[in-house]
């Protein structure tokens, strides 16, 4: 797999040190906002993913909170990135901090001086060099403390960004960090286990119900289904338009994208049971956010067409589309529903019970079910219902504890903060209903 080049219309990941951001490179004049810095993206076109670019100040405007800078990007090689300590040639350091006191006088440069320095210098190493030169205490700090200081300053003045191809791993991080609600609170460890327990792979037909993860869950499953395989995903959602941001960002081949069939839960179940293709009727949607009046026009989009996160914006452009698209998707989904699925994954904002009751009969026997919720009580009830029904065995309700570590010579310890809620997974395997008739 050769590294692809950056194209217009791509979703890209902009990385500046540890900060990452998902951004659409919609047109040649597109810009991206990175804190106070605005980046012009035109230089990215046709460059390979993974390239590093240098931010060059184009203009600087005084803003409410410090200067707002606009930058152009210039392709550069990784060799320009060097260890700041080596660049500055720092040799002396102190033993401990007994002689250092925080009196606000350590830095001789004033904030105006630094701001001016920033305008003049294009390189963060120059700025940091000046800061170190003018710091009264730097050389009495311990080596570790110096490193921390340099890291902190480098983070502030770092002038390089890397452009990366979106992957599930990178997007799961970005979404969860920006707002865990965006992905219904599905933490990375839980996401990884949903994929494992569901058994989703290159063979089989998989069923997913989710009520809003910005496309992360269907994208993760479709990613595991893979390109040029025979597996298919039916993605049921409660709204007018499926959330597909993560799916579109993955830049999957068309044939693979088409094996994710996104359908409205109500519409497809009605067609499945009643054999008629009716659009979902207003008021039926349980989607919590969108109170958009429903019409034919706002039916599920094709995976190839970019979908806005806000369905409202899409309405106007949707009217031109063939009204048959959602009907075709429903038809395809119904055929698979009759043939039965090889797993069921659910991440619902609604109570899982009734949805599960509707979808469980669509599964083959001896197949995994995986139900996610951030709320344990909902899964406790569902656990009991399943246990009593005798339709599912090997039931487990699990949660996770995940801790990150700082591992550095002589400075190894768990990270100071950790995430407290992994969410809960209810897992089990379906049993053959044939035995019920025998009894």
């Amino acid at each position, binding site marked *: 797999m050769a590294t692809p080049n950056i194209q217009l219309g791509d979703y890209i990941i902009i990385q500046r040190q540890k900060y990452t951001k998902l951004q659409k490179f919609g047109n040649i004049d597109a810009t991206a906002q990175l804190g106070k810095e605005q980046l012009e993206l035109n230089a990215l076109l046709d460059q390979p993913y993974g390239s590093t670019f240098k931010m060059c100040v184009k203009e600087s405007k005084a803003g409410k909170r410090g200067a707002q800078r606009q930058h152009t990007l210039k392709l550069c090689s990784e060799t320009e990135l060097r260890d700041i300590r080596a660049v500055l040639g720092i040799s002396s350091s102190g033993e401990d901090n007994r002689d250092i006191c925080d009196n606000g006088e350590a830095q001789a440069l004033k904030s105006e001086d630094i701001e001016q320095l920033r305008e003049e210098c294009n390189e963060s190493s120059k700025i940091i060099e000046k800061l170190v030169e003018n710091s009264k205490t730097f050389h009495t700090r311990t080596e570790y403390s110096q490193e921390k200081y340099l890291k902190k300053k480098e983070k502030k003045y770092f002038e390089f960004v890397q452009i990366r191809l979106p992957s599930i791993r990178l997007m799961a991080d970005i979404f969860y960090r920006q707002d865990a609600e965006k992905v219904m609170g599905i933490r990375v460890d839980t996401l990884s286990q949903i994929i494992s327990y569901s*058994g989703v792979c290159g063979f089989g037909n998989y069923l997913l119900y989710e009520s809003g993860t910005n496309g992360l869950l269907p994208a993760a499953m479709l990613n595991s289904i893979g390109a040029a*395989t025979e597996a298919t995903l039916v993605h049921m959602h409660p709204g007018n338009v499926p959330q597909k941001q993560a799916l579109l960002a993955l830049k999957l081949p068309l044939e693979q994208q088409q094996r994710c069939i996104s359908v409205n839960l109500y519409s497809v179940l009605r067609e499945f049971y009643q054999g008629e293709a009716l659009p979902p009727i207003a008021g039926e949607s349980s989607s919590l956010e969108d109170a958009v009046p429903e019409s034919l026009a706002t039916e599920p989009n094709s995976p190839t067409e970019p979908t806005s996160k806000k369905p409202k914006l899409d309405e106007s452009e949707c009217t031109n589309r063939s009204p048959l698209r959602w009907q075709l998707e429903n038809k395809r989904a119904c055929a698979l529903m009759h043939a039965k699925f090889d797993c069921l994954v659910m991440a619902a904002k609604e109570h899982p019970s009734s949805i599960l009751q509707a979808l469980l009969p669509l599964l*083959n026997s001896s197949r995994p079910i995986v139900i996610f919720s951030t709320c344990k009580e909902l899964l406790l009830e569902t656990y009991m219902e399943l246990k009593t029904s005798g339709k599912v065995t090997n039931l*487990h309700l699990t949660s996770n504890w995940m801790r990150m570590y700082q*591992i550095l010579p002589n400075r190894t310890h768990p990270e100071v903060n950790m995430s407290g809620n992994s969410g809960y997974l209810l897992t089990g395997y379906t049993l053959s209903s044939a035995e019920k008739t025998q009894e």
Partner: protein
Amino acid sequence: MSFLKPQTHIEKGDIVILYLSVNSMHAIEAVPTILNKKGETIPHIFQTPYGSLKVESIIGVKYGSRVELSKGWAHVLQPNPELWTQTLPHRTQIIYTPDISMILHQLEVRPGAVVVESGTGSGSLSHFFLRALKPTGHLHTFDFHDLRATQARDEFRKHGLESFVTVYHRDVCNLGFTSELDGRADAVFLDLPAPDLAVPHAFKALKLSGGRFCSFSPCIEQSQRCINALSKLGFNEICSMEVLQQENVVKTRTVPVIDLEFLKQPKSSSSEATKTPKELKKYLTSSNPQVLPGHTGFLTFATLPPNIAKT
């Protein structure tokens, strides 16, 4: 077979999971006869605490069905890496689903991926790698123990996975991953006592366009040495973590609510006659078991960025 793709019915030669209870599962081979210790062909009878199972009788049965044992019943399930991990014959310590899931996610394994693994061990993780990368990817798995490598190779063949995996008997710390694999891997996974010794070989095996690296080690000193080796070679995005899964045991509890108010009143002679029944309240609860896994291993991940010169 039976590991390759979803199947509805048990075929002869399948590995089948005989599910008795949450704590009692067995992987059995669906063959009518087996050889006994003397080398004679005898009917395949599997013994359980609930009596025996004539294995021939389950061939052709639908997966997920209930099967009768002489003193009870069980369910037959199609095996998958999760169930296999819980039933496989242990030749070494193995890695379990929570760690494995994180490994697959962080290594970005998907169909088409080329993965290098060392050591093979009992093949618990290998089965997960194979599910994730088949049918278009390939797993190269190394173990320095000859018998373990042979047993793993046999298992993969029996499970219908042999076309997606190559098993090597080789000491990778000293000899590396063979020159044929130079620049071929999307991801390298190490579970070795001294991962730092294999890091330079992992570096060589990863593609020029870059790739992902993971090392699993029980002790933090191993991770420290490994990270040291990774930093020297230009790996970035180095991070270490621990993932522990907790079971929530679901139970309905009925708790009595005792009345203490009546103690404030002097005992009246009529109280015995009007004795109210104890109030009971029912709760659906969950609690963690008494003993939980407190440590499995430290997972260290890293990225080899693209275009790093390998000479």
